[in-house]
């Protein structure tokens, strides 16, 4: 995958393609909303849509980190488990009456450290990202079981902590605020900082990035630590939202996060990513299951329909892209 040489004009083309893809996604969301508003009266309400957005926040946050990771040409399968470890750390400390500030900071540190560990394995031990993060996933899940002894952490809810997952600011649920803030900051980092440019450069062509003097090891470690950081934020928010940290918390989230990023137009082979696409991707995943739930579709059918819709979303983007070319 990394052998794809992406020259400058190609990169420009790729950017244009991303914009079209975003347009395609937006059109899809709008069509879906119109159709659904006829089918179910409760779909197009503010409360329903904010609900869907709130449900998608956790995948979205993981997806942000994943977008960076995928842009480097890597993958991070351990986000679900980092989410659990961080949420677990905060919850566990709170249940021992530690003040909320150190508890949250400790949770975030856990995520970043595990993420940096992934980065170290990948760069220093030369283990492929897939295997390194798969191993972390297995180890982390094991740690969750040893740590909780299979009994979920609970009874850690204090007022301030409850606010993170359940409070609101100006009528906006706080998890949504977190996602928006994270998006704005990361969008800036991705587009306007040297770090962001290096990530794209590395993903487009590892060799030339190295030659041009980028410390690639450091870069990768930072990227995986960022993924851990996002997982930690998601995990702490989820711990506050669910009021309990189950050892299985976040299981399977990694695939949804990857799907969100890719639906949004981030490439699995690296060099190309878009955070706004990830926002839309995560939103669409939850919008689909919300719509199917509201229509009371048989849960067996839900699995099929979800898969087909994801295919349609991506295929429609491709076809519209081709038509324009013709």
């Amino acid at each position, binding site marked *: 995958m990394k052998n794809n040489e992406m020259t400058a004009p190609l990169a420009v083309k790729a950017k244009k393609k991303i914009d079209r893809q975003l347009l395609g996604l937006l059109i899809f969301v709008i069509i879906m909303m119109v159709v659904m508003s006829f089918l179910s009266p409760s779909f197009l309400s503010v409360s329903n849509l904010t609900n869907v957005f709130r449900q998608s926040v956790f995948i979205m946050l993981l997806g942000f980190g994943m977008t960076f990771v995928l842009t480097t040409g890597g993958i991070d399968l351990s986000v679900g488990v980092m989410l659990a470890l961080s949420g677990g750390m905060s919850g566990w400390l709170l249940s021992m009456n530690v003040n909320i500030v150190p508890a949250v900071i400790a949770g975030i540190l856990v995520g970043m450290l595990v993420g940096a560990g992934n980065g170290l394995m990948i760069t220093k*031990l030369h283990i492929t990202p897939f295997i390194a993060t798969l*191993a972390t996933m297995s180890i982390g899940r*094991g740690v969750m079981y040893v740590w909780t002894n299979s009994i979920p952490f609970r009874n850690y809810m204090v007022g301030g902590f409850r606010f993170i997952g359940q409070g609101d600011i100006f009528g906006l649920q706080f998890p949504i605020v977190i996602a928006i803030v994270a998006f704005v900051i990361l969008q800036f980092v991705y587009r306007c900082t040297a770090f962001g440019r290096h990530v794209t450069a590395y993903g487009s062509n590892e060799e030339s990035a190295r030659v041009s003097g980028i410390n690639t090891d450091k870069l990768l470690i930072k990227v995986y630590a960022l993924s851990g950081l996002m997982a930690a934020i998601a995990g702490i928010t989820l711990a506050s939202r669910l009021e309990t940290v189950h050892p299985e918390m976040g299981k399977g989230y990694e695939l949804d996060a990857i799907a969100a990023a890719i639906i949004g137009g981030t490439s699995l082979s690296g060099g190309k990513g878009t955070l706004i696409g990830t926002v839309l991707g995560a939103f669409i995943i939850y919008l689909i299951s919300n719509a199917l739930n509201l229509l009371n579709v048989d849960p067996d059918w839900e699995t099929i329909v979800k898969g087909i819709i994801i295919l349609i979303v*991506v295929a429609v983007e*491709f076809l519209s892209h081709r038509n324009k070319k013709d």
Partner: protein
Amino acid sequence: MKKQAVAHTKKFDELGILIVMIALFVFLAIASPFFLKVENIQNLLLQSVFVMLVGFGMMFVLTIGGIDLSVGSILGYSGAVTGIIIAAGGNVFLGILAGLGTGAAFGIINGLLITQLRIAPFLVTFAMSSVVRGILLLSTTNGAVSGFAVPEFTYLAQGYIIGLPIPVFITIIVFVILLFLFKFTSFGRNVTAIGSNREVAFLSGVSCNKITVGVYMLSGLLAALSGILLAARLTAVQSEMGGGYEMDAIAAAVIGGTSMAGGKGSIIGAIIGAVILGMISNGLDLLSVNQFYRQIIVGAIIIIAVALERFTSLKTERV
């Protein structure tokens, strides 16, 4: 440049991981009095081959630079198709053929979506796994598929030939065929060529689309074979059968030295990878390791195995 290096080290590629496997084997033989029992070795092989078969297909897919997340679902549904036909009184061979056909058909659909619509393999197969799992859920709404345990069929998984469980026997035959296919045919060479550099392969006249569809078909077919054997072993097919197999298969292939980035694969490596995974879980049972520490140990062993492999292969490369 890179390609040359790959060709050069090919002969020694599996050495590092082979050493890891042998070390693990020796360790378990010493640590547990039950490990070398005939039944245990039979069990161990039997427990490994289902992932191994899927891993073979995955190895081809990874080598061409793709990924196939739908193998677990295809495995489940193909087994169900075979089961349904046999349960309805159909001929066993017909049932098996239909199951294999189902797997191959889904593989072809994967391949066509990837090549014709140019959607990322990850997404196509991720969505396909959802679709196929859904179809399986629908065909098991009234409970698991069962009632197909006629002796001719269950013999496939429960019988023995010269002390080897039949699935192991079948896997060996499949291995020989695939090894030939991978090493000595233009198909195999083209798979590697496309994975190393699609552009170059295309320009040198390789019909990339055909080969890609072929690879996904092969992956579907092998998943189906594994599913049918698993159905014969379990004598019932549940909606969740094969769940998570894609990860094990990928892990088996990658531990065995197949590159996630394409262009480099090893069938023998996939075997060793699957056996290592099988030995880990068998060993953990035999050594009565505390439940909660198991996943930690599995993860640690994967890291050690791959890091060791990297270390030794770098060394041989220098020699």
